């Protein structure tokens, strides 16, 4: 049997395009939304009418590349977005007028890679890992709040319920909302493992079943808009802001990470330890670079208010099997469940750029394996045990990221520079802002 040569990812194949064109025709789809994410992981979308679909599939669609670089529209430059027919999906929340979406690959007009596309960057890192025989699997537990319709900017939002952790009561408006959200997600091909009410009022958690890293990053992007749509339909507002309420825990996005060599979980061990030597080296790599990547796992000024206040949010670069406050938790080994061996990274929040986070986690872990990093001692009873502190604020995190050789090698200078410039603008804006804190502390005292 003569095997066809491997096709490069993204190369057009008529079968897929036929599928898209035929489905659009049969289902009466009227518009196609082309999706891509900016450097902060925020979803950007533009619509094309069905009449433009065929040429968009073959020749791409031109757009201004600065729109991917996070609202820094200083210089315009043209890039080409190629819709990926593999990601074609009819949107379930537009039943009256059918609309479908496709994620795009963004490239330079000369077909070279465009450094500002974090989705393409993750794919490149995944391809490198695949060259070494590895694929990463990721599961996510996404926390978020739904509030009553928002008032003016800066008001404290109204909570919808007083539901407590795992509560299930008829008064919990949230269960209607969760059911609707889960239906949307499953129609979008994002299976949900579990969902429940979280600790804080109006807070929810939905666990997304594990999948490969690119599909998971796409799923998180899709998840955020599906949740917002479902909340909107119930007259509410969903937010992935890391810390909306001072008195209550913030929202995190714990990531369950495992690494496969073919069909075999490379983290699994039959020995007493919870992780194989490969798993320990991978985790050591992630911990060694945890401070470098905090600017990406926790990319907003507000992210650090979640990390500062405990409520199980991590403060130190530590790992544990039983504690609740470490950066990484390694679940106990379950005999006979080899595929389940993994670790749980607990710092990211649900408003991160999942593409960049997963690219960095994978690159850091692979570096740990290549260079044989030793895993530090486990932290017992949530004592940091001499482990370094995570950056205290966005300024410290941005400086560490800016100087990180791993980040620059993995993400490329362009993506790093654009990201850092964006974060420095955010910090400068904050420095000029008089806040509630200023007034409550100083107005009468001084």
């Amino acid at each position, binding site marked *: *049997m*003569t*095997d*066809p*040569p*491997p*096709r490069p*990812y993204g190369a057009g*194949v008529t*079968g*897929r395009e*036929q*599928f*898209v064109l*035929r*489905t659009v025709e*049969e*289902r009466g789809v009227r518009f196609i939304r082309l999706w891509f994410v900016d450097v902060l992981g925020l979803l950007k979308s533009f619509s094309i009418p069905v009449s433009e679909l065929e040429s968009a599939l073959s020749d791409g669609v031109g757009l201004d590349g600065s729109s991917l670089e996070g609202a820094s529209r200083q210089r315009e430059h043209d890039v080409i977005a190629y819709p990926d*027919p*593999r*990601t*074609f*999906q*009819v949107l*379930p929340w537009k039943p009256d007028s059918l609309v479908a979406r496709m994620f795009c690959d963004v490239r330079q007009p000369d077909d070279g890679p465009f450094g500002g596309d974090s989705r393409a960057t993750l794919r490149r890192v*995944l391809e490198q890992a*695949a060259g070494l025989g590895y*694929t990463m*699997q990721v599961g996510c537990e996404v926390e978020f709040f739904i509030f009553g319709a928002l008032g003016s900017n800066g008001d404290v939002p109204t909570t919808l319920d007083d539901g407590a952790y795992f509560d299930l009561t008829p008064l919990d408006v949230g269960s209607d909302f969760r059911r609707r959200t889960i239906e949307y997600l*499953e*129609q979008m*091909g*994002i*299976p949900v493992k579990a969902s429940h009410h979280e600790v804080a009022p109006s807070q929810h958690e939905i666990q997304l*079943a*594990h*999948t*490969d890293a*690119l*599909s998971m990053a796409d799923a998180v992007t899709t998840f955020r808009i599906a949740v917002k749509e479902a909340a909107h339909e119930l007259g509410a507002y969903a937010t992935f802001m890391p810390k909306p309420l001072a008195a209550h825990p913030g929202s995190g996005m714990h990531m369950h990470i495992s690494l*496969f060599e*073919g*069909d075999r979980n490379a983290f699994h061990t039959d020995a007493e330890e919870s992780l194989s030597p490969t798993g320990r080296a991978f985790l050591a790599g992630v911990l060694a670079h945890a401070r470098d990547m905090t600017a990406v796992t926790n990319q907003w000024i507000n992210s650090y208010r979640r990390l500062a206040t405990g409520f199980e949010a991590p403060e130190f670069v530590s790992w544990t099997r039983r504690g609740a406050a470490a950066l990484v938790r390694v679940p106990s080994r379950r005999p006979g469940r080899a*595929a389940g061996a993994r670790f749980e990274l607990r710092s990211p929040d649900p408003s991160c750029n999942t593409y960049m986070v997963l690219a960095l986690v994978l690159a850091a872990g692979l570096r740990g394996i290549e260079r044989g990093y030793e895993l530090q001692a486990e932290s017992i009873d949530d004592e940091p045990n001499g482990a370094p502190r995570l950056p205290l604020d966005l300024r410290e995190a941005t400086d560490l990221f800016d100087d990180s050789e791993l980040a620059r090698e993995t993400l490329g200078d362009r993506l790093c520079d654009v990201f850092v410039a964006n974060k420095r603008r955010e910090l400068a804006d904050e420095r000029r802002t008089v806040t509630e804190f200023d007034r409550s502390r100083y107005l009468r005292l001084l």
Partner: protein
Amino acid sequence: MTDAWIYGTHGSERTTRLLAELGFSPHRVAANGTLRPPAGGGRAPALAVILADGLEQPSCSELCARLAADESLGEVPVLVALASAGLAEGIGVTEGHELLVEPFTADELQARIARARHAVNGVDHEDIVRVGSLEMNLATYQVAIGGRPVDFTYMEYELLKFLVTHPRRVFSREALLSRVWGYDYYGGARTVDVHVRRVRAKLGSENAARIKTVRSVGYRWEGT
């Protein structure tokens, strides 16, 4: 996906032309005992036609047995064409899934192909597969459950189509990867499990239960 492979030489030019007229891409397999054509042999064809008249090495029955035993060609519908003069001898009449008697017309060939595909893959003459409340239209890529359309992504659709048209047989994850994804997959062997979960979620409980997990082997579609 609409490749048709032709074995044997008797009347092969005419058969090739008729198959092309019916929308198939015909490929002739060399008469040297190979099972696959020199070009386009990477994927299993939609059907195989054995022109049994004058076929000696390998014989028609040997060829059928080897096709049935092949890892990726085992469920390809096989049509055996015999010359009317040879019918009385009975050689080959019980081979394959459907019999053709030469000379045959394009209409007859089309009808015989439809019968063979229905018997083997459960596909009716309009390219529709029906299993319980599930209806899959292979010509338009549309899937409906109880008459209501269900929207799949391309790979979800291709996986479901493969399982539905190959009922009752267990496929390993590796077999599904190479037959459904070809060389264009990304998540390693776990990709199959992830997609099965996605397809099951969209199918709803009644039809999801038709995709059986066969522990430490793979998956099987429980068709009718």
